[in-house]
């Protein structure tokens, strides 16, 4: 059976070239980067090389980049660190209703510790209204955190414009760019952001390694305390092979950015066209214009996402859903809720994300199978009109 992975936004396989770079750092070149002797210094050099590679992808300086264990840790560090650093200045944070849980749950933690958080609504296309941001700012606002690209509906936010608003008011600006990295061009200087989170496993690098960009001059409390690693800003023996892998993946992502975007957006558009022409009562969620090149978030009315997901899985196809039934909390996607998708439609939503290993044949196969699956489930469904 054909295996088609269409969940590249969840995670990506590590590319062979990336893994090849990593391997020696497990066994031969395993020295602790903090050690003075030769194999320690070699590890340190490997880390600095990777830092250069990753910094280049976002147009940052090397010393503005700090490796973390994930995008999640980078998000936590940014918001909890800023809250701690700036608590004398104020206790108000602004973010959006469509952030990743790494941001939302960090904010909820802060709300229990004396901070106030405004969760901005977004427009029906998933974009933040700059006027809404302006209106939410108070004298007590110390941090604005708005994601670059949404992980569910792929919406690209107007970060440059939003960061400019923050800058005008002298407020720190963070963006979660985990889904943006490798999928949209990123220039931290041009964007004018102060803090930015990224993660390797979304760009064909390994899981368990991320980074926080901290603009030169920005003060931020440490989040993980201990040894002097990462210029004394992030403690813990470095995930050496992980960092090396992140570096190589970033290098490849930089080299391939244009062709990657062209390829996957072409495939994604073809896929949406096929689906919407072959299946009725399908809607595309989120902006078509400002969108992650590989993302297709679709609602199939009258049927439920987990059932679709499992039927597709039986056909070798991997996708994800915003359905409540598939989540541990049984709550429907907060992102689809925020853009006003009715709850019954959220149950019927699937996210397809196309990636570097996707072929047109894969998508043709998925279309055929999906038509069958949707028909079968609508046939079973108690609310289907067909």
């Amino acid at each position: 059976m054909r295996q088609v992975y269409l969940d590249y936004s969840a995670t990506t396989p590590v590319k062979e070239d990336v893994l090849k770079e990593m391997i020696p750092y497990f066994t031969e070149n395993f020295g602790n980067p903090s050690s003075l002797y030769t194999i320690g210094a070699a590890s340190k050099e490997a880390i600095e090389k990777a830092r250069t590679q990753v910094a280049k992808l976002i147009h940052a300086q090397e010393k503005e980049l700090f490796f973390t264990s994930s995008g999640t840790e980078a998000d936590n560090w940014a918001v909890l660190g800023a809250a701690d650093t700036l608590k004398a200045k104020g206790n108000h944070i602004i973010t959006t209703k469509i952030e990743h849980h790494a941001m939302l749950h960090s904010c909820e933690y802060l709300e229990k510790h004396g901070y106030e958080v405004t969760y901005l609504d977004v427009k029906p296309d998933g974009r933040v209204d700059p006027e809404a941001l302006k209106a939410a700012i108070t004298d007590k606002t110390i941090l604005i955190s708005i994601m670059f690209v949404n992980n569910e509906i792929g919406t690209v936010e107007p970060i440059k414009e939003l960061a400019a608003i923050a800058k005008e008011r002298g407020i720190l600006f963070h963006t979660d760019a985990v889904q943006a990295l490798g999928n949209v061009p990123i220039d931290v200087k041009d964007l004018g952001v102060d803090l930015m989170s990224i993660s390797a496993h979304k760009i064909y690098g390994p899981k368990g390694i991320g980074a926080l960009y901290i603009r030169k001059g920005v003060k931020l409390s440490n989040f993980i305390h201990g040894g002097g690693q990462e210029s004394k800003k992030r403690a813990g023996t470095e995930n050496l092979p992980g960092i090396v892998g992140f570096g190589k993946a970033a290098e490849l992502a930089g080299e391939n950015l244009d062709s990657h975007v062209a390829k996957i957006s072409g495939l994604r558009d073809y896929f949406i066209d096929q689906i919407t022409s072959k299946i009725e009562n399908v809607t595309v969620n989120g902006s078509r214009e400002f969108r992650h090149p590989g993302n297709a978030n679709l609602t199939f009315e009258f049927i439920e996402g987990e059932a679709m997901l499992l039927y597709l899985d039986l056909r070798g196809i991997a996708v994800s859903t915003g359905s409540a039934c598939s989540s541990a909390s049984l709550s429907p996607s907060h992102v689809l809720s925020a853009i006003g998708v009715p709850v019954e439609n959220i149950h019927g939503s699937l996210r397809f994300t196309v990636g570097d290993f996707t072929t047109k044949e894969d998508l043709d196969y998925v279309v055929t199978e999906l038509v069958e699956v949707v028909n079968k489930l609508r046939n079973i469904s108690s609310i289907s009109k067909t």
Partner: protein
Amino acid sequence: MAMYNDKVMDHFMNPHNVGELENADGSGTYGSPVCGDMMKIDIKVEDDVIKDAKFKTFGCGSAIASSSVATDMIIGLTVDEALAVTNKQIINELGGLPAIKIHCSVLADHAIKSAIYDYAQKNGKSYKGLEGFDPDADEDDHHDSCEVE
């Protein structure tokens, strides 16, 4: 797909008794699309025995499998026996469900009661197993659990 066992997957992939009965003797709907699961069961009753049952379900894998196995279970039972079917029995028949999916079997159990309730109403019958059963009140209950769980 370690989530569901083989029996559940079997019923989910090839559900039994899908559809609607023309001239059903009783028909019950339970759940709501807002909760992500809604089940409709039609029954045919002769001499107080459930001769046939069909279902339509909007819901997850375990909701569909529960519907399938529940309709299987009640066909051939007397109405009283069918009313005695618990969601626990449905789960047992399925060989178990993930803890978080238990509520989907409650759904089947309630849909059966609703269908029998409808049958009883239409035919002026009363069953011990229906005492205290109010399809609408329960609907609220379920709604609650759909928010809370």
